[in-house]
Protein backbone atom coordinates (compact mmCIF):
# COMPACT_ATOMS: atom_id res chain seq x y z
CA UNK A 1 0.00 0.00 0.00
CA UNK A 2 2.88 2.28 0.71
CA UNK A 3 3.67 3.20 -2.84
CA UNK A 4 0.36 2.47 -4.48
CA UNK A 5 -0.84 4.92 -7.06
CA UNK A 6 -3.21 7.57 -5.87
CA UNK A 7 -6.18 8.46 -8.02
CA UNK A 8 -6.46 5.04 -9.60
CA UNK A 9 -9.27 3.43 -7.71
CA UNK A 10 -11.75 5.91 -6.37
CA UNK A 11 -13.95 4.12 -3.91
CA UNK A 12 -17.55 4.88 -4.63
CA UNK A 13 -19.89 4.76 -1.71
CA UNK A 14 -23.03 2.91 -2.52
CA UNK A 15 -25.83 5.30 -3.33
CA UNK A 16 -28.74 5.13 -5.67
CA UNK A 17 -27.40 5.44 -9.19
CA UNK A 18 -29.35 8.56 -10.07
CA UNK A 19 -28.41 10.75 -7.09
CA UNK A 20 -25.22 12.80 -7.20
CA UNK A 21 -22.54 10.80 -5.51
CA UNK A 22 -20.00 11.56 -2.84
CA UNK A 23 -16.90 9.64 -3.65
CA UNK A 24 -14.01 8.83 -1.37
CA UNK A 25 -10.73 8.69 -3.24
CA UNK A 26 -7.31 7.65 -2.05
CA UNK A 27 -5.47 10.92 -2.48
CA UNK A 28 -2.14 10.88 -0.64
CA UNK A 29 0.20 7.91 -0.49
CA UNK A 30 1.72 7.04 2.84
CA UNK A 31 5.09 8.39 1.70
CA UNK A 32 3.61 11.80 0.93
CA UNK A 33 1.72 11.87 4.21
CA UNK A 34 4.71 10.86 6.32
CA UNK A 35 7.16 13.22 4.65
CA UNK A 36 4.56 16.00 4.85
CA UNK A 37 4.18 15.79 8.62
CA UNK A 38 7.88 15.32 9.28
CA UNK A 39 8.46 18.37 7.11
CA UNK A 40 5.83 20.37 8.99
CA UNK A 41 7.47 19.61 12.35
CA UNK A 42 10.97 20.26 11.00
CA UNK A 43 9.97 23.61 9.47
CA UNK A 44 8.56 24.78 12.79
CA UNK A 45 11.79 23.79 14.56
CA UNK A 46 13.90 25.48 11.87
CA UNK A 47 11.83 28.65 12.08
CA UNK A 48 11.88 29.08 15.85
CA UNK A 49 15.56 28.16 16.19
CA UNK A 50 16.43 30.29 13.15
CA UNK A 51 14.74 33.32 14.66
CA UNK A 52 16.64 32.71 17.91
CA UNK A 53 19.88 32.65 15.89
CA UNK A 54 18.87 35.82 14.06
CA UNK A 55 18.35 37.54 17.42
CA UNK A 56 22.09 37.21 18.14
CA UNK A 57 22.84 39.50 15.22
CA UNK A 58 19.59 41.09 14.04
CA UNK A 59 20.88 42.83 10.92
CA UNK A 60 21.12 41.84 7.26
CA UNK A 61 23.86 42.81 4.81
CA UNK A 62 24.88 42.17 1.22
CA UNK A 63 28.28 40.85 0.09
CA UNK A 64 30.84 38.84 2.01
CA UNK A 65 31.20 40.80 5.23
CA UNK A 66 28.78 42.39 7.64
CA UNK A 67 29.04 43.33 11.30
CA UNK A 68 27.96 46.05 13.68
CA UNK A 69 29.02 49.27 11.95
CA UNK A 70 28.57 48.08 8.36
CA UNK A 71 25.43 49.60 6.82
CA UNK A 72 22.64 47.03 6.89
CA UNK A 73 19.47 47.22 4.87
CA UNK A 74 17.38 45.52 7.50
CA UNK A 75 17.88 45.58 11.24
CA UNK A 76 15.93 45.35 14.44
CA UNK A 77 17.19 47.40 17.39
CA UNK A 78 16.30 48.22 20.95
CA UNK A 79 17.02 51.86 21.76
CA UNK A 80 16.37 53.72 24.95
CA UNK A 81 13.98 56.63 25.22
CA UNK A 82 16.06 59.07 27.27
CA UNK A 83 12.97 60.88 28.55
CA UNK A 84 11.18 57.87 29.94
CA UNK A 85 14.11 55.40 30.28
CA UNK A 86 11.85 52.91 28.50
CA UNK A 87 13.29 50.73 25.72
CA UNK A 88 11.94 51.36 22.24
CA UNK A 89 11.89 48.74 19.50
CA UNK A 90 13.02 50.12 16.15
CA UNK A 91 12.93 48.20 12.88
CA UNK A 92 14.97 49.69 10.08
CA UNK A 93 14.23 48.78 6.45
CA UNK A 94 16.33 50.34 3.68
CA UNK A 95 17.10 53.33 5.86
CA UNK A 96 13.49 53.87 6.95
CA UNK A 97 12.92 53.46 10.67
CA UNK A 98 9.71 52.22 12.23
CA UNK A 99 8.85 52.02 15.90
CA UNK A 100 7.87 48.41 16.51
CA UNK A 101 7.81 48.28 20.32
CA UNK A 102 5.71 45.35 21.47
CA UNK A 103 6.47 43.23 18.43
CA UNK A 104 10.06 43.65 17.20
CA UNK A 105 13.02 44.95 19.20
CA UNK A 106 11.10 45.21 22.45
CA UNK A 107 8.28 42.93 23.59
CA UNK A 108 6.44 42.59 26.87
CA UNK A 109 6.60 39.54 29.10
CA UNK A 110 3.71 38.02 31.08
CA UNK A 111 4.18 40.62 33.82
CA UNK A 112 4.03 43.43 31.29
CA UNK A 113 7.72 44.22 31.67
CA UNK A 114 9.57 45.22 28.48
CA UNK A 115 12.11 42.68 27.24
CA UNK A 116 14.61 43.60 24.53
CA UNK A 117 15.31 41.19 21.67
CA UNK A 118 14.72 41.34 17.93
CA UNK A 119 11.99 38.71 17.70
CA UNK A 120 9.87 38.29 20.83
CA UNK A 121 10.63 35.44 23.22
CA UNK A 122 7.18 33.88 22.83
CA UNK A 123 7.82 33.27 19.13
CA UNK A 124 11.28 31.75 19.27
CA UNK A 125 13.12 28.77 20.71
CA UNK A 126 13.92 29.23 24.41
CA UNK A 127 17.52 28.84 25.54
CA UNK A 128 20.73 30.20 24.17
CA UNK A 129 22.87 30.23 21.07
CA UNK A 130 24.40 26.77 21.59
CA UNK A 131 21.00 25.09 21.83
CA UNK A 132 19.58 27.09 18.91
CA UNK A 133 22.53 26.00 16.74
CA UNK A 134 22.11 22.36 17.77
CA UNK A 135 18.37 22.38 17.08
CA UNK A 136 18.75 24.26 13.80
CA UNK A 137 21.40 21.93 12.41
CA UNK A 138 19.74 18.71 13.60
CA UNK A 139 16.44 19.89 12.08
CA UNK A 140 18.27 20.87 8.88
CA UNK A 141 19.57 17.32 8.57
CA UNK A 142 16.04 15.99 9.04
CA UNK A 143 14.80 18.40 6.39
CA UNK A 144 17.45 17.23 3.93
CA UNK A 145 17.02 13.50 4.61
CA UNK A 146 13.23 13.74 4.61
CA UNK A 147 13.40 15.86 1.46
CA UNK A 148 15.61 13.32 -0.31
CA UNK A 149 13.18 10.52 0.51
CA UNK A 150 10.34 12.66 -0.83
CA UNK A 151 12.27 13.55 -4.00
CA UNK A 152 13.18 9.92 -4.72
CA UNK A 153 9.61 8.88 -4.11
CA UNK A 154 8.25 11.69 -6.26
CA UNK A 155 10.53 10.84 -9.15
CA UNK A 156 10.12 7.09 -9.16
CA UNK A 157 6.39 6.83 -8.51
CA UNK A 158 5.39 9.55 -10.91
CA UNK A 159 4.03 11.79 -8.11
CA UNK A 160 5.79 14.83 -9.56
CA UNK A 161 4.80 14.15 -13.17
CA UNK A 162 1.23 13.22 -12.33
CA UNK A 163 0.42 15.64 -9.52
CA UNK A 164 2.78 18.61 -9.78
CA UNK A 165 3.62 19.03 -13.46
CA UNK A 166 1.05 21.35 -15.08
CA UNK A 167 -0.91 19.61 -17.81
CA UNK A 168 -0.63 21.08 -21.31
CA UNK A 169 -3.96 22.88 -21.30
CA UNK A 170 -3.42 24.37 -17.86
CA UNK A 171 -0.76 26.78 -19.03
CA UNK A 172 -3.07 28.62 -21.42
CA UNK A 173 -3.81 32.16 -20.32
CA UNK A 174 -7.57 31.55 -20.30
CA UNK A 175 -7.25 28.59 -18.00
CA UNK A 176 -4.85 30.43 -15.75
CA UNK A 177 -7.18 33.41 -15.39
CA UNK A 178 -10.11 31.11 -14.66
CA UNK A 179 -8.03 29.37 -12.01
CA UNK A 180 -7.06 32.65 -10.38
CA UNK A 181 -10.70 33.81 -10.42
CA UNK A 182 -11.72 30.54 -8.81
CA UNK A 183 -9.13 31.04 -6.07
CA UNK A 184 -10.20 34.60 -5.40
CA UNK A 185 -13.75 33.46 -4.71
CA UNK A 186 -12.37 30.85 -2.24
CA UNK A 187 -14.60 28.23 -3.84
CA UNK A 188 -14.16 24.61 -3.01
CA UNK A 189 -13.42 22.37 -5.99
CA UNK A 190 -16.02 19.74 -6.80
CA UNK A 191 -16.31 16.69 -9.00
CA UNK A 192 -13.51 16.03 -11.48
CA UNK A 193 -11.76 19.29 -10.62
CA UNK A 194 -11.32 18.15 -7.02
CA UNK A 195 -9.45 15.03 -8.08
CA UNK A 196 -6.29 16.84 -8.98
CA UNK A 197 -4.33 19.82 -7.83
CA UNK A 198 -5.29 22.91 -9.79
CA UNK A 199 -2.69 24.98 -11.58
CA UNK A 200 -1.97 27.48 -8.79
CA UNK A 201 -1.64 24.63 -6.32
CA UNK A 202 0.77 22.81 -8.61
CA UNK A 203 2.84 25.94 -9.10
CA UNK A 204 2.89 26.78 -5.39
CA UNK A 205 3.99 23.29 -4.37
CA UNK A 206 6.52 23.05 -7.20
CA UNK A 207 8.06 26.42 -6.28
CA UNK A 208 8.38 25.35 -2.63
CA UNK A 209 9.72 21.86 -3.39
CA UNK A 210 12.09 22.70 -6.23
CA UNK A 211 12.82 26.36 -5.50
CA UNK A 212 12.48 27.69 -1.98
CA UNK A 213 13.55 24.64 0.03
CA UNK A 214 16.66 23.92 -2.08
CA UNK A 215 17.61 27.61 -1.84
CA UNK A 216 17.24 27.42 1.95
CA UNK A 217 19.57 24.41 2.09
CA UNK A 218 22.16 25.95 -0.24
CA UNK A 219 22.18 29.39 1.41
CA UNK A 220 22.46 27.64 4.77
CA UNK A 221 25.48 25.70 3.54
CA UNK A 222 27.02 28.93 2.19
CA UNK A 223 27.25 30.13 5.80
CA UNK A 224 29.45 27.16 6.72
CA UNK A 225 33.20 27.82 6.48
CA UNK A 226 33.83 24.08 6.15
CA UNK A 227 31.34 23.53 3.32
CA UNK A 228 32.52 26.58 1.38
CA UNK A 229 36.12 25.35 1.66
CA UNK A 230 35.02 22.41 -0.47
CA UNK A 231 32.44 24.34 -2.52
CA UNK A 232 33.58 27.97 -2.86
CA UNK A 233 31.26 28.46 -5.85
CA UNK A 234 28.42 28.79 -3.34
CA UNK A 235 29.73 32.28 -2.54
CA UNK A 236 29.44 33.20 -6.22
CA UNK A 237 26.00 31.66 -6.54
CA UNK A 238 24.51 33.87 -3.85
CA UNK A 239 26.70 36.97 -3.99
CA UNK A 240 28.69 36.31 -0.83
CA UNK A 241 28.41 34.99 2.68
CA UNK A 242 26.24 37.76 4.09
CA UNK A 243 24.11 37.81 0.92
CA UNK A 244 23.45 34.11 1.47
CA UNK A 245 22.39 34.86 5.06
CA UNK A 246 20.06 37.59 3.79
CA UNK A 247 18.53 35.33 1.12
CA UNK A 248 18.16 32.61 3.77
CA UNK A 249 16.15 35.05 5.91
CA UNK A 250 14.01 36.39 3.05
CA UNK A 251 13.18 32.94 1.68
CA UNK A 252 12.30 31.81 5.21
CA UNK A 253 9.75 34.63 5.17
CA UNK A 254 8.37 33.37 1.84
CA UNK A 255 8.03 29.89 3.34
CA UNK A 256 6.12 31.32 6.30
CA UNK A 257 3.88 33.15 3.83
CA UNK A 258 3.34 29.90 1.91
CA UNK A 259 2.42 28.03 5.08
CA UNK A 260 -0.07 30.74 6.10
CA UNK A 261 -1.79 30.65 2.69
CA UNK A 262 -1.62 26.84 2.71
CA UNK A 263 -3.37 26.64 6.08
CA UNK A 264 -6.03 29.17 5.03
CA UNK A 265 -6.71 27.09 1.91
CA UNK A 266 -6.91 23.90 3.94
CA UNK A 267 -9.52 25.51 6.19
CA UNK A 268 -11.68 27.14 3.52
CA UNK A 269 -11.74 24.06 1.27
CA UNK A 270 -12.84 21.72 4.05
CA UNK A 271 -10.58 21.45 7.09
CA UNK A 272 -11.83 18.01 8.13
CA UNK A 273 -11.65 16.46 4.67
CA UNK A 274 -8.21 17.90 3.96
CA UNK A 275 -6.77 16.90 7.31
CA UNK A 276 -8.20 13.41 6.96
CA UNK A 277 -6.69 13.05 3.51
CA UNK A 278 -3.23 14.02 4.80
CA UNK A 279 -3.57 11.64 7.77
CA UNK A 280 -5.42 8.60 6.35
CA UNK A 281 -5.05 9.33 2.65
CA UNK A 282 -8.80 9.32 2.05
CA UNK A 283 -10.42 12.36 0.51
CA UNK A 284 -14.08 12.98 -0.19
CA UNK A 285 -15.00 14.35 -3.59
CA UNK A 286 -18.16 16.45 -3.53
CA UNK A 287 -20.47 15.94 -6.48
CA UNK A 288 -20.63 18.56 -9.20
CA UNK A 289 -23.02 21.46 -8.63
CA UNK A 290 -26.32 21.08 -10.43
CA UNK A 291 -26.51 23.79 -13.02
Amino acid sequence: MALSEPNVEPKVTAQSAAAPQREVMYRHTVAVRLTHWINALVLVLLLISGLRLFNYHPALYWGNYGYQGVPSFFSIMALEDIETDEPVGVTSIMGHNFITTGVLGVAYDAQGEPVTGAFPAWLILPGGLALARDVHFAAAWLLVLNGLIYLLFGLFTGHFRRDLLPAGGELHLRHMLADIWHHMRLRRARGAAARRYNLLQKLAYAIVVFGLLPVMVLTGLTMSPAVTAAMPFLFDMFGGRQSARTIHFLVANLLVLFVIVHIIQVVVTGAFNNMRSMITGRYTILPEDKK
Partner: protein
Amino acid sequence: MNLITRRSLIVGGSAAAATLASGCDQISDVNVESLRPILDFGQFLSLHAQRLLLAGQPLVREYEEADMSPDFPPNGTERPNGMAYFRHMISNFADFRLIIDGMVKMPLSLTLDEIKAMPLRTQITMHNCDEGWSAIGQWTGVPLAHLLKTAQLMPEARYIVFHCMDEMVRTPDNSGFYYESIDLFDAMHPQTILAYGMNGKALPVAHGAPLRLRVERQVGYKHAKYVTRIEATDRLTHIAGGRGGFWEDRGYQWYAGL
Protein backbone atom coordinates in the same frame (compact mmCIF):
# COMPACT_ATOMS: atom_id res chain seq x y z
CA MET B 1 22.07 48.18 18.18
CA ASN B 2 21.44 45.66 20.87
CA LEU B 3 23.93 42.97 20.01
CA ILE B 4 24.59 40.57 22.81
CA THR B 5 28.18 39.46 23.09
CA ARG B 6 29.23 36.39 24.95
CA ARG B 7 31.55 38.54 26.98
CA SER B 8 28.74 40.57 28.44
CA LEU B 9 26.79 37.48 29.33
CA ILE B 10 29.50 35.77 31.28
CA VAL B 11 29.46 38.38 34.04
CA GLY B 12 27.44 36.23 36.38
CA GLY B 13 29.83 33.34 35.99
CA SER B 14 26.99 30.86 35.89
CA ALA B 15 27.59 27.34 34.69
CA ALA B 16 24.83 26.18 32.38
CA ALA B 17 25.22 27.32 28.80
CA ALA B 18 21.52 27.69 28.18
CA THR B 19 21.33 30.10 31.09
CA LEU B 20 24.48 31.90 30.04
CA ALA B 21 23.42 32.79 26.58
CA SER B 22 19.85 33.84 27.23
CA GLY B 23 18.91 36.73 29.38
CA CYS B 24 15.67 35.63 30.90
CA ASP B 25 14.23 32.48 29.47
CA GLN B 26 15.64 29.06 30.03
CA ILE B 27 14.34 25.62 29.42
CA SER B 28 14.86 23.02 32.05
CA ASP B 29 17.88 20.77 31.81
CA VAL B 30 15.57 17.77 31.67
CA ASN B 31 13.96 18.94 28.43
CA VAL B 32 17.26 19.64 26.72
CA GLU B 33 18.89 16.46 27.92
CA SER B 34 16.06 14.30 26.60
CA LEU B 35 16.64 15.87 23.17
CA ARG B 36 20.41 15.45 23.41
CA PRO B 37 20.70 12.20 21.37
CA ILE B 38 18.85 13.77 18.42
CA LEU B 39 20.85 16.99 18.64
CA ASP B 40 24.12 15.07 18.87
CA PHE B 41 23.09 12.96 15.90
CA GLY B 42 22.84 16.13 13.82
CA GLN B 43 26.29 17.07 15.02
CA PHE B 44 27.64 13.61 14.20
CA LEU B 45 26.27 13.89 10.65
CA SER B 46 27.73 17.37 10.18
CA LEU B 47 31.21 16.35 11.32
CA HIS B 48 31.36 13.24 9.18
CA ALA B 49 29.70 14.74 6.10
CA GLN B 50 32.05 17.71 6.22
CA ARG B 51 35.11 15.55 6.78
CA LEU B 52 34.10 13.54 3.72
CA LEU B 53 33.64 16.75 1.75
CA LEU B 54 37.04 18.03 2.90
CA ALA B 55 38.94 14.76 2.43
CA GLY B 56 41.20 16.38 -0.15
CA GLN B 57 42.06 19.17 2.34
CA PRO B 58 41.00 22.03 0.03
CA LEU B 59 41.95 25.56 1.06
CA VAL B 60 39.30 28.08 2.05
CA ARG B 61 38.93 30.94 -0.41
CA GLU B 62 41.57 33.61 -0.01
CA TYR B 63 40.80 37.22 -0.87
CA GLU B 64 42.58 40.25 -2.29
CA GLU B 65 43.41 43.26 -0.14
CA ALA B 66 40.63 45.16 -1.90
CA ASP B 67 38.10 42.63 -0.57
CA MET B 68 39.02 43.17 3.08
CA SER B 69 36.38 44.59 5.39
CA PRO B 70 37.12 48.18 6.51
CA ASP B 71 37.03 47.03 10.11
CA PHE B 72 37.28 43.76 12.00
CA PRO B 73 35.30 43.60 15.23
CA PRO B 74 37.09 41.89 18.12
CA ASN B 75 34.98 39.30 19.91
CA GLY B 76 35.32 37.58 23.25
CA THR B 77 38.12 38.89 25.45
CA GLU B 78 39.55 42.20 24.24
CA ARG B 79 42.26 42.44 26.90
CA PRO B 80 43.02 39.70 29.40
CA ASN B 81 42.77 40.69 33.05
CA GLY B 82 45.62 40.29 35.47
CA MET B 83 49.15 41.58 35.94
CA ALA B 84 50.83 38.69 34.14
CA TYR B 85 49.34 39.70 30.82
CA PHE B 86 49.74 43.39 31.59
CA ARG B 87 53.49 42.92 32.10
CA HIS B 88 53.71 41.14 28.74
CA MET B 89 51.84 44.04 27.17
CA ILE B 90 54.12 46.77 28.51
CA SER B 91 57.27 44.80 27.66
CA ASN B 92 55.94 44.16 24.17
CA PHE B 93 55.96 40.39 24.83
CA ALA B 94 59.77 40.33 25.15
CA ASP B 95 59.60 37.68 27.89
CA PHE B 96 56.75 35.77 26.30
CA ARG B 97 57.35 32.08 25.66
CA LEU B 98 55.15 29.72 23.70
CA ILE B 99 55.27 26.30 25.31
CA ILE B 100 54.68 23.22 23.16
CA ASP B 101 54.40 20.09 25.27
CA GLY B 102 52.33 17.00 25.93
CA MET B 103 52.70 14.14 23.47
CA VAL B 104 55.72 15.50 21.66
CA LYS B 105 59.20 14.05 21.60
CA MET B 106 60.85 17.46 21.83
CA PRO B 107 58.95 19.94 24.04
CA LEU B 108 59.62 23.53 22.98
CA SER B 109 59.71 26.93 24.62
CA LEU B 110 59.84 29.60 21.92
CA THR B 111 60.23 33.36 22.00
CA LEU B 112 58.21 35.48 19.61
CA ASP B 113 61.36 36.24 17.60
CA GLU B 114 62.09 32.55 17.23
CA ILE B 115 58.54 31.99 16.01
CA LYS B 116 58.80 34.89 13.56
CA ALA B 117 62.00 33.38 12.15
CA MET B 118 60.10 30.24 11.16
CA PRO B 119 58.44 29.72 7.77
CA LEU B 120 55.45 32.04 7.58
CA ARG B 121 52.19 32.15 5.76
CA THR B 122 50.05 35.21 5.01
CA GLN B 123 46.40 34.73 4.10
CA ILE B 124 43.37 36.98 3.63
CA THR B 125 40.37 35.01 4.81
CA MET B 126 36.82 35.38 6.03
CA HIS B 127 36.08 35.12 9.73
CA ASN B 128 32.67 33.63 10.51
CA CYS B 129 31.17 34.29 13.92
CA ASP B 130 28.50 31.86 15.04
CA GLU B 131 26.35 34.89 15.90
CA GLY B 132 26.00 35.53 12.17
CA TRP B 133 28.44 38.31 11.32
CA SER B 134 31.53 37.95 9.16
CA ALA B 135 34.63 40.04 8.42
CA ILE B 136 37.62 39.66 6.12
CA GLY B 137 41.15 40.20 7.43
CA GLN B 138 44.75 39.41 6.66
CA TRP B 139 46.70 37.09 8.95
CA THR B 140 50.41 36.32 9.11
CA GLY B 141 51.78 33.48 11.18
CA VAL B 142 53.56 30.19 11.40
CA PRO B 143 51.76 27.09 10.13
CA LEU B 144 50.80 24.95 13.10
CA ALA B 145 51.97 21.90 11.15
CA HIS B 146 55.50 23.35 11.16
CA LEU B 147 55.48 23.83 14.95
CA LEU B 148 54.21 20.29 15.49
CA LYS B 149 56.77 18.88 13.10
CA THR B 150 59.54 20.72 14.96
CA ALA B 151 58.28 19.41 18.31
CA GLN B 152 57.94 15.91 16.82
CA LEU B 153 54.41 14.81 17.54
CA MET B 154 54.11 11.33 19.03
CA PRO B 155 51.99 8.84 17.05
CA GLU B 156 49.45 8.59 19.90
CA ALA B 157 48.61 12.30 19.75
CA ARG B 158 45.11 12.99 18.38
CA TYR B 159 44.23 16.47 19.57
CA ILE B 160 46.04 19.80 19.81
CA VAL B 161 44.93 21.91 22.78
CA PHE B 162 45.47 25.67 22.93
CA HIS B 163 45.78 27.11 26.43
CA CYS B 164 45.14 30.84 26.61
CA MET B 165 46.03 33.74 28.88
CA ASP B 166 42.53 35.17 29.25
CA GLU B 167 40.62 34.07 32.31
CA MET B 168 36.91 34.06 31.46
CA VAL B 169 35.58 32.98 34.85
CA ARG B 170 37.40 33.27 38.18
CA THR B 171 37.66 29.86 39.82
CA PRO B 172 39.78 28.63 42.76
CA ASP B 173 41.38 25.92 40.61
CA ASN B 174 42.18 28.22 37.66
CA SER B 175 39.95 26.19 35.34
CA GLY B 176 38.18 29.28 33.99
CA PHE B 177 40.84 30.19 31.44
CA TYR B 178 39.91 30.13 27.76
CA TYR B 179 41.10 27.06 25.91
CA GLU B 180 40.29 25.34 22.66
CA SER B 181 41.20 22.16 20.84
CA ILE B 182 41.23 20.78 17.31
CA ASP B 183 42.12 17.38 15.94
CA LEU B 184 45.02 16.59 13.63
CA PHE B 185 42.82 16.84 10.53
CA ASP B 186 42.47 20.58 11.14
CA ALA B 187 45.85 21.01 12.86
CA MET B 188 47.78 19.84 9.80
CA HIS B 189 45.79 21.94 7.30
CA PRO B 190 48.06 24.42 5.49
CA GLN B 191 45.87 27.40 6.44
CA THR B 192 45.85 26.54 10.13
CA ILE B 193 48.36 29.02 11.52
CA LEU B 194 49.34 30.66 14.77
CA ALA B 195 49.08 34.30 13.74
CA TYR B 196 51.29 37.08 15.12
CA GLY B 197 50.39 39.61 12.44
CA MET B 198 47.08 41.08 11.33
CA ASN B 199 46.42 43.38 8.37
CA GLY B 200 50.15 43.98 7.89
CA LYS B 201 50.84 44.99 11.50
CA ALA B 202 51.58 43.22 14.75
CA LEU B 203 48.54 41.33 16.06
CA PRO B 204 46.59 43.83 18.23
CA VAL B 205 45.80 43.00 21.85
CA ALA B 206 42.06 43.01 21.09
CA HIS B 207 42.63 40.26 18.52
CA GLY B 208 44.73 38.00 20.73
CA ALA B 209 48.32 39.31 20.91
CA PRO B 210 50.86 37.92 20.80
CA LEU B 211 49.55 34.71 19.19
CA ARG B 212 46.15 33.51 18.08
CA LEU B 213 44.93 30.46 16.25
CA ARG B 214 43.42 30.68 12.77
CA VAL B 215 41.52 27.49 11.97
CA GLU B 216 39.78 28.73 8.86
CA ARG B 217 37.24 25.98 8.31
CA GLN B 218 35.56 26.50 11.68
CA VAL B 219 33.63 29.37 13.24
CA GLY B 220 34.98 32.11 15.50
CA TYR B 221 35.07 30.58 18.97
CA LYS B 222 37.51 27.88 17.80
CA HIS B 223 40.08 30.59 16.95
CA ALA B 224 41.75 30.75 20.37
CA LYS B 225 43.35 34.11 21.24
CA TYR B 226 46.25 34.87 23.64
CA VAL B 227 47.67 31.36 23.09
CA THR B 228 50.47 30.63 25.54
CA ARG B 229 50.75 26.85 25.48
CA ILE B 230 50.08 24.16 22.90
CA GLU B 231 49.50 20.69 24.27
CA ALA B 232 49.41 17.54 22.16
CA THR B 233 47.18 14.88 23.69
CA ASP B 234 45.28 11.69 22.94
CA ARG B 235 42.11 12.79 24.78
CA LEU B 236 40.38 15.91 26.07
CA THR B 237 38.78 14.63 29.25
CA HIS B 238 41.59 15.70 31.58
CA ILE B 239 41.31 19.43 30.82
CA ALA B 240 38.85 21.72 32.66
CA GLY B 241 35.29 20.52 31.87
CA GLY B 242 36.65 17.79 29.63
CA ARG B 243 34.80 18.74 26.43
CA GLY B 244 37.67 20.35 24.59
CA GLY B 245 37.08 24.05 25.06
CA PHE B 246 35.83 26.82 27.31
CA TRP B 247 32.56 27.18 25.36
CA GLU B 248 32.34 23.45 24.69
CA ASP B 249 32.30 22.95 28.48
CA ARG B 250 29.30 25.27 28.50
CA GLY B 251 27.18 23.51 25.87
CA TYR B 252 28.74 24.57 22.57
CA GLN B 253 29.76 21.95 20.04
CA TRP B 254 33.39 20.87 19.81
CA TYR B 255 33.19 20.72 16.02
CA ALA B 256 32.07 24.04 14.61
CA GLY B 257 32.36 23.78 10.83
CA LEU B 258 29.00 25.49 10.43
